[in-house]
């Protein structure tokens, strides 16, 4: 077959005949168009940037959350076997939420108090980022719990045996409201999800943890669902705390 030369003009294309597939022109593959469509400035479609960040007056419904949470647990339970595996998965699921909650709550604090935003914030309530460990713990115990559940956590304790362990106690975790644990899995505490949120907050604030875990509180008759969240901070965090305490004297 003679090679086609470029100087000869192309023969006129045959008339389109859709029964004969040879005559249907095939367009060359178009360049890949990005599949995301951004609303043009002319359209009035709302983007996520149009929504307000301040707290909506009505809270989200608990049954809606419980349904979603139930599905989440079922999904992870089907994928994994052991109790600790499910707890790890729930923990991982809550982690990115913690990271985002930290910035959201700090933004709400800052927007509500423009005076304390850039000025010297002395207390943890009006000031901005938590820089010391105690401030961070109070932030988690108060602001984070109120932002998530509408009430403060019940207790904040420091472990007597280890210096880098702290405990936050919740008498009745809201996430466990509609969850019943079968007897063969009695170790499982679905508040591991909340533990993941707390871990995300601590890590994002710069206080790396080795893990935040949720444990049942034993022997508590009044609150059968009492849960203790154990926060274990890393070595370098404790060293930095020591350094700041020695150098700044609490400043």
């Amino acid at each position, binding site marked *: 077959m003679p090679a086609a030369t470029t100087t000869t003009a192309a023969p006129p294309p045959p008339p389109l005949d859709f029964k004969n597939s040879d005559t249907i022109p095939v367009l060359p593959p178009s360049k890949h168009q990005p599949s995301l469509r*951004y609303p043009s400035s002319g359209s009035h479609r709302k983007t996520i940037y149009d929504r307000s*960040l301040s707290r909506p007056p009505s809270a989200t419904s608990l049954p809606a959350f419980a349904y979603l949470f139930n599905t989440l647990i079922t999904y992870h339970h089907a994928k994994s076997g052991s109790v600790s595996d499910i707890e790890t998965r729930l923990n991982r699921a809550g982690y990115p939420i913690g*990271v985002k909650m*930290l910035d959201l709550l700090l*933004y709400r604090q800052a927007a509500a108090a423009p005076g304390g*935003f*850039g000025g010297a914030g002395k207390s943890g309530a009006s*000031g901005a980022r938590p820089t010391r460990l105690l401030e961070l713990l109070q932030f988690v115990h108060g602001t984070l719990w109120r932002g998530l559940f509408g009430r403060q956590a019940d207790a904040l304790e420091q472990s007597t045996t280890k210096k880098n362990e702290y405990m936050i106690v919740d008498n009745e975790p809201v996430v466990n409201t509609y969850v019943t644990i079968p007897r063969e899995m009695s170790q499982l505490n679905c508040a591991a999800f909340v533990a993941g949120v707390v871990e995300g907050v601590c890590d994002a604030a710069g206080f790396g943890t080795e893990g935040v875990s949720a444990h049942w509180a034993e022997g508590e008759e009044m609150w059968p669902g009492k849960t203790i969240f154990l926060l274990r901070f890393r070595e370098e965090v404790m060293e*930095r705390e020591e350094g700041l305490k020695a150098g700044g004297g609490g400043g």
Partner: protein
Amino acid sequence: MSYYFTIIGTRDNPLFEVEFGTSKVGGDGIAHFRDEAKHMNQFIVHAALDIVEEIQWTNKDMYLKRIDSYQNNHVHCFLTGGNVKFMLLMNPDPMATTYSAYSTSPPSRPSTARQSTTLLAASPNSQATEEAVRAFMLEVYEHWVKCIMNPFYQVNQVVTSPVFQNRVGTAAKKYL
């Protein structure tokens, strides 16, 4: 008067950067950096990150004000709760800034009648400048929080949304 704004993630990786000029009286909204400024701006901003890390544990505020100056470039920083840094580099007279090692900068040309003396960087330490930059940073922070609330946005991912870029541009026109 030109600005270079960048968002730097927790691993010192840039997530977003934009250049613009002032839209106030006398400006046209477009940055007028020299050619070498393309990489020198990044260099100056990243060198200022060390200063941010030093002071972030003793300073509880989120807006850290002006933290560094280099040859007429002033760097302002804002630190979010998640340890993400918004850095704004401002240069009142980019054409006069040489980046050579010999730091004898040429005498800056007197302000022409076109540029008024109400330029922000003309007095970088003034309260008005700090207030303007703080207001700008707060507005960008609001858009930033909305951006990261996206469940599909992972930590330290590059921000590619043109809507975010438009919002930053609008905030810049409003305050800077």
